[in-house]
């Protein structure tokens, strides 16, 4: 039996077919998890967040344009949800920023050493997770959702100059932390 495409599944889900929606969850859970891990910066919270994202996406399914792919849409739902979570974590944000500033731009261990501890992908995720929340958010929206500076500013409710500044600082921090991979 041919697998159903996203549009068919979304239409069935909208009609109340939970099994069809479950299939959409299965298809895009990794993508949504990726967003949650990158934006929230911690894996433990990311799984709970990912589940909540799919519940919210189901509530908003009527607003989904079925002529467009489901993946980017549900990832945007994930970004918005995670950004709201970040905004609510005010005290935690302050602590994390102090921690990150203390860490500074120290490069991670030599790639060869990191290969012993984990894969490159995990290193990159850890480097992104180590960024302050504002920088994490702009990196996510620019590099994983291909939004322009203006759209990022609108999405985050911040000024264009702040977005450019955070993006530049985030990239500089990542360049430092991933120097070993860039030079290898």
């Amino acid at each position, binding site marked *: 039996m041919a697998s159903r495409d996203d549009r068919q599944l979304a239409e069935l889900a909208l009609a109340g077919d939970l099994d069809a929606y479950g299939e959409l969850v299965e298809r895009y859970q*990794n993508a949504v998890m990726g967003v949650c891990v990158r934006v929230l910066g911690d894996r433990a919270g990311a799984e709970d967040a*990912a589940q909540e994202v799919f519940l919210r996406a189901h509530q908003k399914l009527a607003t989904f344009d079925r002529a467009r792919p489901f993946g980017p849409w549900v990832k945007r739902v994930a970004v918005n949800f995670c950004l709201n979570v970040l905004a609510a974590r005010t005290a935690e944000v302050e602590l994390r920023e102090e921690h990150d500033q203390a860490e500074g731009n120290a490069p991670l261990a030599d790639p060869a050493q990191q290969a012993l501890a984990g894969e490159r992908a995990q290193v990159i995720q850890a480097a*992104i997770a180590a960024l302050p929340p504002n920088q994490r958010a702009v990196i996510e929206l620019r590099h994983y959702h291909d939004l322009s500076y203006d759209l990022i500013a609108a999405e985050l409710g911040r000024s264009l100059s702040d977005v450019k500044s955070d993006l530049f600082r985030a990239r500089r921090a990542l360049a430092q932390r991933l120097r070993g991979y860039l030079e290898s």
Partner: protein
Amino acid sequence: MHPDDFDLDALLDGALHDEARLVLERHLATCAACAARLRDRQRLFALIESAPEAAPVQSLRAGVVAALQPKPATWPRWAWVVSALQATVSVALVAGSLMWIGPEVIDRQLGALTVFGLQTGWAGLQALLEAFLTSGQGLTRWLTSGSTVAPSGWVLALALGAAAIGLFGNGIWFALNWGKVRKP
């Protein structure tokens, strides 16, 4: 003039106006050092964007579908309070009326029935029904005559009627919703 990383990032992000982009591209075509720096930025961007999706520990599908299942009707907390108040008022109305009327009057009105001991069987029921009928006729006369003095018998009938409606209503509601209702 050589561009800095900020300018190179803007070029890669597609954020430069046409004129600025053309000027920069002309420079990069003639400056090997700046071209090399652009390649470094491109490698950084590619490295950032190579961070993979993250798989959840276990599939989110089951949890999401379970959370979306329709739930049994829950009686809201206030409804429990109203129900309890209703039952209490009904009982209080009866007790208050009985005390106000006095056991001798009740005994006289209801014949075989007394406040502290009910006569069982058909005779007792007949007496009770007769008392209600008598009280109903008294109520009708009172309403039509415009008198403000209430016969004791119909006061008791009113109290018993209100209690019956209250308790009967509760009972019917629970019977209809048994199994569907759970306390919040």
